[in-house]
């Protein structure tokens, strides 16, 4: 594809992602809360509760400790849209991983900008989370290249076999860090969904009203993108296999909810060590097999 076409496709993808991902992400979040409640023996909120929450947050007064916070969050959101649009339009996976990391960095800066000790702790922990999962994310991109011969996500559609057949160890590693990326317990150090295991509210301590609403939307978009990474492993030549990918992503999400509800938060040392060990062992073995054999 010539560069101009790529840019246009990415732009269209970004716009479509910016419209659809919040809808899908919102429903996923609602499902998450419903299932979590059932696992705890409660009835739980209505499916659209996350939507109500965000609408309410946008109705609230717009105040912030530091005016730039809002700008950083908007940047984070825009980069998440671009990353998602690029991924779902079949763009360059390596670039997607970089752009979504950029989005996380903007979120971290936003948390630091408030100068509140609580959100600074949250931001420091989020930095550790990024450090923990980033090696595995890069290995995923490299593994993808070795399996398909291209960094373009659309490359999976030309394969005779899903890429999970050749890089299943990388997939397991990705599953491990998915918990960190989705900020689910036991790795929800920077910002928990559950108030009870939190230093006030981690990164979002000083964010309120519309800013917090945008953080929620950012979180939904990230979820949709990361579940897309999971689904990508199960798609090959036949376009119908996308359904298998969707099913796999949903199963992975359910697994994450189950993990979230069954494990207490760990210390950051454990998170960092385990994530790096898993990344080096799983991806190391898998990639060396692909390169040397």
């Amino acid at each position, binding site marked *: 594809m010539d560069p101009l076409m790529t840019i246009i496709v990415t732009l269209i993808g970004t716009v479509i992602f910016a419209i659809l991902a919040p809808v899908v992400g919102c429903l996923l979040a609602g499902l998450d809360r419903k299932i979590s409640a059932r696992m705890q023996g409660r009835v*739980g909120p209505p499916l659209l509760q996350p939507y109500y929450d965000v609408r309410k947050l946008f109705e609230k007064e717009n105040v912030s400790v530091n005016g730039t916070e809002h700008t950083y969050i908007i940047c984070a959101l825009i980069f998440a849209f671009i990353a998602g649009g690029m991924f779902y339009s079949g763009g360059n996976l390596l670039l997607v991983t970089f752009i979504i990391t950029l989005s996380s960095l903007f979120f971290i800066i936003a948390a630091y900008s408030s100068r509140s000790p609580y959100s600074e702790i949250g931001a420091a922990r989020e930095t550790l989370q990024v450090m923990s999962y980033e090696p595995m994310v890069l290995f995923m991109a490299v593994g993808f290249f070795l399996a398909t011969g291209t960094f373009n996500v659309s490359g999976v559609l030309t394969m005779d076999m899903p890429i999970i057949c050749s890089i299943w160890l990388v997939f397991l590693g990705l599953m491990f860090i998915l918990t960190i990326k989705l900020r689910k317990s036991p790795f929800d150090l920077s910002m928990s969904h559950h*108030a009870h295991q939190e230093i006030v509210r981690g990164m979002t*301590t000083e964010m309120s009203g519309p800013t917090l609403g945008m953080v929620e939307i950012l979180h939904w978009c990230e979820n949709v993108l990361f579940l897309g990474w999971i689904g990508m492993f199960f798609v090959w030549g036949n376009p119908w296999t996308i359904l298998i990918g969707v099913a796999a992503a949903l199963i992975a999400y359910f697994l994450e909810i189950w993990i979230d509800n069954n494990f207490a938060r760990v210390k950051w040392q454990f998170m960092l060590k385990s994530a790096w060990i898993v990344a080096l062992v799983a991806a190391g073995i898998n990639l060396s097999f692909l390169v040397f054999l």
Partner: protein
Amino acid sequence: MAFASKSPWVIHYDGSSCNGCDIEVLATLCPGFDGERFGVINTGNPKHADIFLVTGSVNEQNIDVVREIYDQMIEPKVVIACGICACSGGVFHDCYNVMGGVDKAIPVDIYAPGCAIRPETLIDAIVQAVGILDEKSAAMREAKKGA
């Protein structure tokens, strides 16, 4: 349509309560009554909360804390005085250190009496509170349009 009533997030502060009311407040938020059915979440962060649940009376030590939490909350917000101590000082009203109900420090929207407050009373109070939240949020929207 106002969404304030659909997702009332609460923050709970124990002024100088004997803990009787606190236990009842937490019982209301526990799985038995499952406040999350109506979107109620216990936030622990004034900047995220819409409803301020205060238990216990106000004294020289905590009046600043109550005011601080109230000031940090973002409009529209509602205050519920939980238990008779928070309403008027209750059995402690003539203690040397007690100044009186929460309304000595901040404007209270709903008085929920009881010693200790029953979860049913508190649920009633929250239902009233979300009505007030909607009104305030509608008023804010009007003000914005006017401006």
